[in-house]
């Protein structure tokens, strides 16, 4: 069995990644189902409601793929997410909270997932992995589009000024605590990439480039101020370790 330089078996690292993905996919399924109902509640176009409903079903299918890879690696115990809480600050009115949820889930998280999946697709070692990654990437494109479509529809109906100052907190939640920390050796093994898991230092570069090239320009195109978000990213990068050669 192959090991990472820290001695942790590569198989264990990979199984752990698929277990985390399983939890995130089960959570996303619930979240999209709730978003579909909330979109209906504010009179959103049927096309957006349908996208959210379809995304909920997609995520259940994705979770099944994650479970299959997890089991193939010898994983035993998986736990699904069965309840979700809103990301949005509770002090916001409903329309603003819904907007926050869609921006966070679709414009940020699903856009980042799409970029990561495309990166993984290029490097995947086996045909089976490539087939699954292709299916997932195709779906994630639609999940991301839901957020951008919502902003395009909502921009003439509400003021997005509230969003700009909230973006740093949203991005911090999306990045997680390890994104700008030194990469842990067992999570940064180059072999991970061919097996469908992005090494940690590469994950950071994909995340940052996607913010700078897709997410921030997307917000600006749709009238969401990015000054605070860009300042947050600059501060994070100034303190982050230099990427390895």
């Amino acid at each position, binding site marked *: 069995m192959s090991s990472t330089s820290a001695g942790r078996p590569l198989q264990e690292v990979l199984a752990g990644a698929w277990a985390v993905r399983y939890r995130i996919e089960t959570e996303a399924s619930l979240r999209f189902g709730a978003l579909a109902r909330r979109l209906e*509640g504010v009179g959103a176009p049927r096309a957006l409601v349908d996208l959210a409903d379809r995304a909920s079903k997609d995520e259940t299918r994705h979770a099944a793929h994650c479970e299959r890879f997890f089991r193939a690696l010898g994983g035993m115990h998986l736990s699904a997410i069965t*309840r979700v809480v809103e990301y949005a600050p509770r002090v916001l009115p409903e329309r603003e909270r819904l907007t926050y949820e869609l921006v966070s889930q679709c414009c*940020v998280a699903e856009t980042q997932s799409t*970029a990561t999946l495309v990166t993984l697709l290029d490097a995947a070692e086996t045909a089976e992995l490539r087939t699954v990654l292709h299916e997932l990437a195709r779906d994630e494109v639609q999940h991301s589009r839901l957020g951008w479509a919502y902003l*395009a529809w909502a921009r003439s109906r509400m003021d997005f000024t509230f969003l700009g100052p909230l973006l740093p907190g949203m*991005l911090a*939640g999306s990045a997680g605590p390890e994104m700008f920390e030194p990469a842990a050796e067992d999570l940064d093994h180059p072999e991970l990439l061919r097996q469908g898991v992005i090494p940690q230092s590469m994950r950071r570069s994909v995340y940052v480039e996607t913010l700078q090239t897709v997410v921030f320009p997307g917000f600006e195109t749709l009238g969401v101020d990015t000054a605070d978000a860009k300042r947050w990213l600059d501060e994070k990068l100034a303190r982050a370790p230099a990427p390895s050669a």
Partner: protein
Amino acid sequence: MNLKRLFHALVLGGSALGAANCGGGTATEPPANAGTGTGSTTLLPDGGVPPSMPGMPGGGAPGW
């Protein structure tokens, strides 16, 4: 990876979809209290969403 292509596919593709649906074709008419946030309860398929807790992360983690 060509991120500029991704921008076109996601942002411009999504925006076009949203813009195309700007008039009419809504799923339902907005309820009378839509957007007010007063007394609204967000229901999830599992039966309900508890209030946001202090310290909750403000954004979703990309699964990938």
